[in-house]
C-alpha cells in the first residue's frame, strides 16, 4: 500500500507535469485532419481499459478466495494504469486541456467508446473469467499489432508498456478457463454457460467503421477484422484444452464503439463518477 501523503500544490504541480511530459515526438499527435478520428480511437482503447478495470475492481473484497481477490484487484489496477496512458494521450490529441481524469469522470455514457462486452455485469466467477479471457486474447493481439506496425510512436510505446501486463492477464485467464472448463461438472457447465452468454458480444471486436478506416490508412491502427484470426487461434486452442464448445458465429451486438451502450454503462458511470459530479474538481 502506498503511504497517504499530503501533496502541497507545488508538489502536485510537479507530479502532474511529470505525468504529462513525454519526450517522444509524434507528428500524429498534432495532426489537425486526423484529430477527431484519432481522439475517438484513443477513447476506445482507454474506455475498454477503464470500464473493464472498474468492473474487475467490483470484485475487490468479494473474491471467492484471497488469492483470486488480490489477482482481480491487481488486474483492475493494471487496466486503470492503461486507461491513464490512453486517455492521457487522447486529451493531448484533443488539445482542449482535458486530462485523463476529466475524460474518465466528466463524459456521459454516449461519449464512451468501449466495447459492449466490457460493460456487461460481472455475473458469477465463470462469466467474469470468461469475459477477461475473451477480452485479453483480443487485447493481446491488438497491442502486438500496434507494437510491430503502428506508425505512431506514442501509440506504440503505450502498447509496449501495456502488453507486459496484458500477457500476464491472458496467461492467468487462460489457466483458469482450462482449470474450470476441464474441472467438475458444475464448473464446466458454468464456463460453457458463460461462453454462450458472452459470445454474441465478441463480434464487435472485429467490426470496422469509418473512424477506424481513417487511422488504418494512416498506418496507426490495425483493421479490426485482421485481428480475428489470431484471436480465434488463441480461443480455440484454450477451449480445446478446456473441453469447451466454441459457438457458431451468429448475431452480434454492436454499437459500443460508436457510443450506443447497454443499460449497464449508465449504472457504472453513476457510481464511478459520483464524487467528481457531486464535488467538481475535488482532489486529495
Amino acid at each position, binding site marked *: *500500500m*502506498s*503511504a497517504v*501523503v499530503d*501533496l502541497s500544490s507545488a*508538489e502536485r504541480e*510537479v*507530479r502532474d*507535469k*511529470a*505525468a*504529462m*511530459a*513525454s*519526450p*517522444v515526438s509524434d507528428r500524429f499527435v498534432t495532426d489537425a485532419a486526423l484529430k477527431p478520428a484519432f481522439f475517438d480511437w484513443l477513447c476506445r482503447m482507454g474506455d475498454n481499459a477503464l470500464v473493464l478495470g472498474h468492473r474487475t475492481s467490483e470484485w475487490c473484497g468479494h473474491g471467492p478466495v484471497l*488469492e*483470486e481477490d*488480490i*489477482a482481480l*484487484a*491487481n*488486474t483492475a*489496477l*493494471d*487496466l*486503470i*494504469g*492503461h486507461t*491513464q*496512458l490512453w486517455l492521457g494521450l487522447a486529451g493531448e490529441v484533443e488539445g482542449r486541456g482535458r486530462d485523463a481524469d476529466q475524460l474518465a469522470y466528466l463524459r456521459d455514457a454516449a461519449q464512451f467508446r468501449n466495447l459492449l462486452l466490457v460493460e456487461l455485469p460481472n455475473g458469477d466467477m465463470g462469466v467474469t473469467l470468461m469475459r477477461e479471457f475473451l477480452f485479453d486474447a483480443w487485447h493481446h493481439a491488438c497491442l502486438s499489432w500496434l507494437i510491430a506496425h503502428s506508425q505512431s*510512436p506514442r501509440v*506504440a*510505446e*503505450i502498447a*509496449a*508498456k*501495456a*502488453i*507486459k*501486463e496484458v*500477457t*500476464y492477464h*491472458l*496467461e*492467468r485467464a*487462460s*489457466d483458469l478457463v*482450462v482449470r474450470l472448463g476441464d474441472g467438475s461438472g458444475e464448473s464446466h457447465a458454468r464456463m460453457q454457460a458463460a461462453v454462450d452468454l458472452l459470445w454474441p458480444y465478441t463480434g464487435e471486436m472485429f467490426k470496422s467503421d469509418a473512424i477506424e478506416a481513417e487511422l488504418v490508412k494512416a498506418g496507426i491502427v490495425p483493421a479490426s477484422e485482421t485481428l480475428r484470426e489470431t484471436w480465434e487461434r488463441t480461443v480455440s486452442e484454450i477451449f480445446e484444452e478446456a473441453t469447451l464448445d466454441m459457438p457458431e458465429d451468429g448475431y452480434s451486438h454492436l454499437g459500443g464503439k460508436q457510443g450506443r451502450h447497454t443499460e449497464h454503462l449508465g449504472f457504472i458511470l453513476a457510481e464511478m463518477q459520483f464524487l467528481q459530479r457531486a464535488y467538481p474538481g475535488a482532489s486529495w
Partner: protein
Amino acid sequence: MTTASLPEIAEIWDWLSEVPDPEIPVVSVTELGIIRDARYEGGTLVVAVTPTYSGCPATSVIDMMIEAKLREKGVEDLRLERRLSPPWTTDWVSEAAREKLSAFGIAPPIDGTASDGGMAAKAARLSGKSNLSVACPRCGSANTERISQFGSTPCKASWRCKDCLEPFDYFKCI
C-alpha cells in the same frame, strides 16, 4: 543558482540513490532501474523516470520523493519527465538490489519466468508447475510453488516454500 554552480550529474545520481522505493524501502530507485536519465537543459535539471507497472500507485509518490530529495540538496530548477519506452524490465534491477530483496524476504526476479516466455510458459502450464525454480528467501530451498500470479503489490507474485512451509513474495519477472 548560476550555471557555474550546478551540481555534477554524477552527484545527482548519488543523491537519487538515496531515494528508497516507497513499497520496498530496502532498494533505491536507482537500483530498481527506474531512473532512465539525468541531464541539464540549460539550467534546468531534467530527470527521466519510468514506471514499473502502468497502474502502480507508488509512481506519483516516487516522483514526489525524488523532487523532495533534490530540493533538499539545493536543486531549484527541476523537471521530471515520464519515459515509457523502452518499457521497464526486471533485467534493470541491479545485482546489489537482488541481494537486498532476498535478505528482505522477497525472492528476486529470475530470467525466463516472464509470461511472454511463450513456449516455456506453455510447457509449464501443461506440466502443472513452474519451469524454473524460485528459491525460498527464508530457507533457500528450491522446493517451492506458485500460489498466485499476483501478490501484495503489482510487481510481486505469491509463492510458498514446500520445505519450511512459509509463504513469500516473488518479485515477478517482466
